[in-house]
């Protein structure tokens, strides 16, 4: 798994030169990965400011706006789910074991036109 970091929180706005440039660059890279047959999936994530952190303590679900600021926690895995809205996603996040001893960050995946 590649963790794709970026220097800005938000994605560039569609229609801007920056957006087009990013799409082209990723398009080229994904084309190469696709041809080699190694690509499973790749998608950008929405701004971290749109995420919600879910913790379950004593059977109570505690929500925090934004990503976890707990430095003792580290990314340990992922799950991709398709839900109608945030409430549904939060409900499923709360049953993940990570929510009990650490936290689950719920963050939207951005649907972009496939560039490949």
């Amino acid at each position, binding site marked *: 798994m590649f963790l794709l970091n970026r220097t800005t929180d938000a994605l560039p*706005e*569609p*229609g801007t030169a920056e957006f087009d440039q990013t799409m082209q660059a990723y398009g080229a890279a994904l084309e190469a990965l696709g041809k080699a047959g190694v690509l499973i999936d790749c998608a950008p994530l*929405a*701004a971290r*400011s*749109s*995420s*919600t952190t879910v913790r379950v303590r004593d059977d109570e679900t505690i*929500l925090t*706006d*934004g990503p976890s600021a707990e430095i003792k926690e580290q990314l340990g895995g992922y799950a991709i789910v398709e839900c*109608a*809205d*945030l*409430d549904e*996603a*939060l409900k499923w996040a709360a049953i993940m074991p990570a929510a009990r001893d650490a936290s689950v960050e*719920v963050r*939207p995946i951005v649907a972009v036109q496939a560039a490949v």
Partner: protein
Amino acid sequence: MSGALDELIRRHWWAAVATVCRLTSDLGAAEDAVQEACVVALEQWPSTGVPDNALGWLIGVARHKALDRLRREAVRGTKEAASMREASESGAGQDASPRAADTLSLVFLCCHPALDVSARVALTLRSVCGLSTGQIAAAFLVPEATMAKRLVRAKAKIRDARIPFRVPGSGELPHRLGAVLRVVYLVFTEGHMASRGDALVRGDLCDTAISLARGIAGLLPGEPEAMGLLALLLLTDARRAARSDDLGELVLLEDQDRRLWDAVMIAEGEAILEAALRKGRPGPYQLHAAIAACHSTASSAGRTDWRQIALLYAELIRYEPTGVVEANRAVALAMAEGPAAGLVILDALAHHPQLQCWAQLHIARAELLKRLGRHSEAIDVYSSALDLEPAPAARSFIARRIRELSS
């Protein structure tokens, strides 16, 4: 006339934004469109007269404005346009008449627990109560640009994270209603704390919180806690005129001139509290309101039913197991059974690490020590309260007490 029009618009803002939000699926777009519709109304209504169905008129114009914006932005392909396009496809044939479910959905949206608490409060004041960004910024003593940023960020999160616009199901309702009532309570306490800011703005905030609580209690007639909160706010705000003296200094409850209390508000608060209690589902807001009612019904501070207040605090601990509630119970117990009974509890609390920095606890302990005649101990405890740098009003009160005890 302008004041009357403002009032008319303010009265319809909540329902108008709610309905247009359902039709556009975008809170920011709905708010902007209703704002524009209000500007048109302010221009036209003085000459054409107020339409019979003012709310329907505002919704109609706002919906038109929102669709206009959609057409303008469709070419740009922005995120906002994408969500509005989705909305117009699914909602073109939707009913534009206002519904109670819309107004409730809007409150639950703005008070969603996935939003930061300060954002929930600001968003509710803007989207539900119709306050301007400038007014909200002034009320919370932050620059307008900071408040504008907070609101934009909250609306972006609602859109990007897909926070739903709907009334939660019965399973979630108690928890989600708790979050809503907390926001209303925070708006009220912000207005009630006369410690900072312009007194006039803050009184407005109390009025806003009360009308919000009234609206929510009206929309959820089966929820005694919503009624309990409304009763609590009415009973507390009824004392507004007596809470500060001519110099603007805070007057403690026991020293207040009870003739200045608003008897009509007290009567309404009591009636609402009784109706809530009859439903047989007690909760923290009903208990807080019952405590406020104990004070309101006492003809003088000396006739306060402290035994009843101590019992109510004991009950409240079940919902709010905090040192603050326990300390309040101790003070009530000291009034009912003598200072020694209260001091035992406060002494135990004073060792609690989280409460050591709470000046009010030290002040309460010192007061009881003073009443027991243990003056030198009282002076020591007052001094430790001073070390915590309390608010100016409390500081001058403590200094006065130390002077009295030292002489």
